[in-house]
């Protein structure tokens, strides 16, 4: 499978990674190489095989839906590049 420049640009957009226009052809080529490698999976007969959801046969444990470690606003904001008045600050989202 060959990936074109437009597809590479679309994937970069979906992944929210800025890729300069002149870097797109090389990126598309790398994707094509990797996807070409992955294409081998088409040789496998997977008819009737369940897709794996958990590698260990276990049921996830349940617990009470209660706050266990709350009230840590300052710790949560401690590493933020921009935090103001108890909130994460970001560029204007709504006009």
């Amino acid at each position, binding site marked *: 499978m060959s*990936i074109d420049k437009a*597809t*590479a640009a679309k*994937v*970069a957009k*979906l*992944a*929210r*990674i*800025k*890729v300069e226009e002149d870097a797109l052809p090389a*990126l598309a080529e*790398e*994707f094509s*190489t*990797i*996807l070409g*490698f*992955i*294409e*081998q*999976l*088409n*040789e*496998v007969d*997977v008819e009737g*095989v*369940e*897709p*794996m*959801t*958990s*590698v*260990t046969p*276990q049921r*996830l*444990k349940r*617990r009470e839906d209660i706050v266990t470690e709350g009230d*840590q606003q300052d*710790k*949560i904001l*401690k*590493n*933020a*590049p*921009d935090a103001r008045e108890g909130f*994460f600050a*970001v*560029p*204007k*989202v709504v006009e």
Partner: protein
Amino acid sequence: MTDLNTLTIAEARDALRKGEATSVELTEACLKAIEGAGALNAFVHKTPEIAMEQAKAADARQSAEAPSLNGIPLGIKDLFCVKGVPSQAASAILDGFKPEYESTVTANLFGAGAVMLGKLNMDEFAMGSSNETSCYGNAVNPWKVDDRQLTPGGSSGGSAAAVAADLCLGATGTDTGGSIRQPAAFTGTVGIKPTYGRCSRWGVIAYASSLDQAGPMTKTVRDSAIMLQAMASHDVKDSTSVDLPVPDFEAMLTGDIRGKTIGIPKEYRLEGLSEEIDAVWTRGKEMLAEAGAKIVDISLPHTKYALPAYYVIAPAEASSNLARYDGVRYGHRAKLSAGDGIVEMYEKTRAEGFGHEVQRRIMVGTYVLSAGFYDAYYNRARKVRTLIKRDFEQAFAAGVDAILTPATPSSAFELGAMKDADPVQMYLQDVFTVTLNMAGLPGVSVPAGLDAQGLPLGLQLIGRPFQEGDLLNTAYALERAAGFVSKPSKWW
């Protein structure tokens, strides 16, 4: 007495208990070795103050009943969150990040009395097989045969280099596709990836959550048993950590493997497998047979598809896990131009913060999960994963106790050697190791000899799920028979 930093964990523990050395002396010896090993670029955040404080506390509580790792100096891979200490997964996007919490594995180690010397180099977000994707620059293998600088492997390259160069007594690693076992093989050290669920992933910066598992990297099998025991636990903070008792792994090291059945999978005899790797594999078989094990040929028919399936599943999970690095909550945020909105902030932050390989894997993952391709790639890969696991289940059901394979397709290669290769060439480094992550099984790399150049080669043993004790015992028998004692000669 020999330099204290060259001791194994077991030797140091015994010396501390007998009062022949103190943790402060041991820790100072390691800190001195680290200071002199800048050329290896293994330790990327040094924590001597924390280390000395922990060492003094360990000496104060030293007794016959002291915990298993009391006073033992370790290195911690940069992927583990350690409270108040830079923890950035070797990525510029986590520049300046100091966690407000402690990973369960490091909390367990500190609870067992361990001393932390600092954070260790690695591939960015554990994505790489040569430690060349790190934002700190390459870690360097202490082993060399000429002027060339060799890779210590990856992603846990700093951990492997530090243990091999006696900068610490042991180190933590993590393994998503081979990131403990390949670096261990490249540096003549021992590394075990436990069964998925044996160690808590809480506080370990996520790459591919269904594959990631933490484990020890040490000088001997015994040390891996001691360290794994301290690292493992059931943890309510990780819903995939298993609620099983952690056995006394060290007590299970008898070296007696008489009557055990060791499988040799024919699919691992790859076309073009180097003669030296083949020879060390054959020697491994002979050694286990001489120790009383029964050697049988087995077939794991879907082996070939493990690596391509991995390169669907791991990037898919990575694209989801790494969505959190958006310049809002922690780490780097790009400088914005006038008029830039939140989308530009995400795009510029992620372009500046992530290295090339990480960006590539996020985008491959985004592609295989995107509408129209999800079934063709992601679901198909998950079905293949079921088949890979079934291969192993059938081998174990037929009476196989452990499986012996090469650990890597080559010995350590030169840093920069893969610079112009396509990405798939580097991915092939994990061809023997990645199957276990897909099946969730434990695997250990044991140094087995030197190649013609004089570089270490490792063999991999694969065990039944949650039977790390039995696996380590087989590894112990192999280690004793191989008698690998070579050390890199100091050039750094």
